[in-house]
């Protein structure tokens, strides 16, 4: 394979120069005109935007300005990477051996692609495109919420984490609407099925400059060893070290952590589930379950499954591991100046009756110990309404119509008890 001739190199250079000039012009125009453009778009679609985003957009103008910033970032970084790729290919084409030329060129191309993906993943727009392709994928929602939290300029930024129970009970958009412009709430329930997930999440809360984390915890967080883990897209060096200190390897998490380590090194691997969900509509462990026609007894099966899950909650080495992780999570939050509020979650009385008594007692004891160990920790439980059995769609998730009332009560509690900044008040 002959290296590229100087004539073709000149042609490519001219094309790249033309592309650079065009990109510079577009970026310049965007930068100069983004304020008036944002005002125009706000007037045209602002109301629909607020309605569509269900409380996640409070200031359409700011939201649109951030999208222009995303676009500028993508154009500039894309251009830089195209030039770097061209330079790398030129260097690679000078290698004498064909095999080395291909290997170098491929390596450079792969590295630059990962760099571009990494840059894209820092923009909310990228995740919104993926969300449009597959709206129900939790990881994408998590990333959008995180980016919106970063973009918010409210004095207080609060992340809500927990399992799907938290998302069923708490409407973060509604909380934001209640407290804006003083506080912003982001529902990040992708991380939170286990306490060890909270430890992984803490790095992301710090990145998003969160001041508060509301942790929705229940017995499932500590005593159910079968919950999923989310290390692949979220693992960072700090949390890797903490997880290993807590003994994650002994608890069968080695494989998950390995995936997380690969994800740390390779953005394309880190985002594989989101990209696969967006393009293929499924990820590898989805199965075809959500596509197959559902049996009439599906709901009955879900209830039986949840009841048997409650019966199998255990106090064992695995639950101690989860408790260690949660303690470490609280320690890190304290070191990073993040305030933690714990909501003691609830389940249907039918399911609660199946949970072994010693689990309940241990859970209460554990929470009490945490309050003594971390005096700044705040707990909410008794102040919130207790759900009745008929308010649940299965045994763990309340029906949608009860979410608004629960969130309103939560907002009230937060306002009265825990939002300590005197200048922060509810918008009504």
């Amino acid at each position, binding site marked *: 394979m002959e290296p590229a001739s100087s004539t073709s190199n000149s042609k490519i250079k001219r094309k790249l120069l033309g592309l650079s000039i065009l990109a510079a012009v577009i970026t310049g125009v965007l930068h100069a005109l983004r304020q008036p453009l944002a005002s125009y778009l706000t007037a045209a679609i602002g109301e629909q935007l607020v309605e569509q985003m269900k409380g996640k957009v409070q200031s359409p103008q700011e939201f649109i300005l951030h999208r222009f910033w995303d676009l500028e970032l993508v154009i500039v970084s894309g251009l830089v990477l195209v030039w770097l790729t061209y330079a790398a290919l030129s260097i690679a084409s000078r290698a004498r051996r064909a095999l080395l030329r291909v290997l170098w*060129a491929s390596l450079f*191309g792969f590295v630059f692609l990962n760099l571009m993906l990494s840059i894209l993943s820092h923009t909310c727009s990228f995740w919104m495109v993926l969300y449009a392709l597959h709206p129900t994928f939790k990881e994408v929602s998590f990333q959008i919420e995180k980016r919106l939290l970063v973009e918010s300029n409210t004095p207080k930024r609060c992340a809500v984490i927990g399992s799907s129970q938290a998302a069923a009970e708490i409407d973060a958009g509604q909380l934001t609407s209640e407290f804006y412009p003083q506080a912003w709430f982001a529902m990040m329930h992708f991380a939170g099925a286990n306490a060890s997930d909270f430890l992984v999440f803490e790095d992301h809360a710090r990145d998003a400059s969160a001041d508060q984390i509301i942790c929705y915890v229940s017995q499932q967080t500590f005593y159910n060893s079968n919950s999923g883990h989310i290390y692949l897209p979220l693992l960072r060096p700090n949390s890797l070290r903490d997880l290993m200190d807590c003994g994650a390897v002994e608890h069968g998490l080695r494989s998950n952590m390995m995936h997380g380590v690969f994800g740390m090194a390779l953005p394309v691997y880190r985002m594989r589930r989101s990209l696969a969900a967006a393009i293929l509509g499924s990820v*590898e*462990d989805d199965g075809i379950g959500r596509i197959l026609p559902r049996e009439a007894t599906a709901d009955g099966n879900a209830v039986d499954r949840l009841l048997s899950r409650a019966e199998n909650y255990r106090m064992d080495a695995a639950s101690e591991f989860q408790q260690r992780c949660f303690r470490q999570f609280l320690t890190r939050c304290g070191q990073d100046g993040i305030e933690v509020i714990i909501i003691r979650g609830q389940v249907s009385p039918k399911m609660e009756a199946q949970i072994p008594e010693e689990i309940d007692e241990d859970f209460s004891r554990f929470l009490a110990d945490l309050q003594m160990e971390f005096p700044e920790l705040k707990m909410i439980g008794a102040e919130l309404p207790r759900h009745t059995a008929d308010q649940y769609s299965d045994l763990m998730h309340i029906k949608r119509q009860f979410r608004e009332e629960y969130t309103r009560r939560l907002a009230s509690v937060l306002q009265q008890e825990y939002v300590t900044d005197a200048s922060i008040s509810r918008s009504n």
Partner: protein
Amino acid sequence: MAIVLATYYRLQHRSQNAFLLCASYIFYGWWDWRFVSLLLLSTVIDYYCARMIGSGKHRKLFLLLSVTSNLTILGFFKYFNFFSESLQSLFDGLGWYADLPTLNVILPVGISFYTFQSLSYTVDVYRHQLEPSKDLLDVALYVSFFPQLVAGPIERAVAFLPQVQRSRRITETAVLNGIWLILIGYVKKTVIADRCAQLVDPCFSGDALPFTGLANWLVLYAFAFQIYGDFSGYTDIARGVAKLLGFDLMLNFAAPYLVSNPSAFWRNWHISLSTWLRDYLYIPLGGNRCSAFRNNCNLMVTMGLGGLWHGAGWAYLFWGIFHGLLLVIFRDRRRAESPSRLQSTWYWRFVAIFVFFHISCLGWLLFRTGSLPPSMNQIAFLRDSFVTLTQASSQFPWPLVQTLIPMAMLVFLFQWYHERMECFSSWPIKAQSMGVVVGTCLLLVFGAFRGTGFIYFQF
């Protein structure tokens, strides 16, 4: 693999052969050490038979010995229970009492492949197409060469043995092409085959397909893509590894879903098997140098046995007969009428390809089920499709369409450019690096790493 290559490149020719032979037997023994002796027995029998055939003494007798021993081994391990149970069913149907024995026999991995390969050696020697090798090690390596031992391609001694016997020079071109073939093989397997398997396997777990009408065709498409990705992916990996070792294995898959007739299909699908059956079964039976009726019978026998080669079951036999019928009908029509001008237009070809793809999918229905339940045979399937043609299905699985579109694009891309895929080393460097980067990203993003084994390993 890395250890094998690193050691292999340091050795001289004869040592390389000995090393590869050891590696191949260790590889095979890793699957199941109990059947290493079977592989060795088959090899030794055919080596000595070929030597005796080459010496000119009792040529037919030793050919018969080789054929009989290979087919006996294959027949015993693969078909004993099938014939026993079929005879039992026949006797039961006729009201005769007979308690025929069945044996708890494990099917040795790759037996269908290496017995055919070994058999082709003695037949080629008999036909004077090849001189018998005086070195047992060379023949043993030809039969047991590990990249293609368990799932082909079924190599011919005429093409492969000379590569074993001469010293090999591993060029940069071969290494580049080998790495590329391995990469696209893994893409076909983990991205296409294993992703489709996640859709297909649950659908075939019950007594009937889960959707109604046309939606069930989506499941068939998924299986068609799965089996292509699985089998051609394995072949690509085998050919890529062989290239890294200095060997050239034959092309086994070209563009089987871009053909418009069954004859072209079998020139593009599992080429090593179809050419083996043509050269060692169809042509000795008379081929097409006989009456039309006899020719049709030869086709049906060849295809029927070809179907049975895939599995000891009536469904595989009927699958083979299904393709035999298609070939018979196609050839009869071609004899009866010459192609019109319309048939040479691109849109006629497009329609013909579209129709034939669906016909071959109907064959895959039988192949996948491996049995003949009333609810999943082709007639019921077609009837269901046409009955609901005008009815809107409220549960049409649109998410399945979203998954299948990228799979279809990949499958047709690999088939449309299959010739270009063979000469990666001649691509411009930008295209090469883009190909490697895109292939690697496809693997990392879409690869289903918790996938299933290779389908054709069971044959």
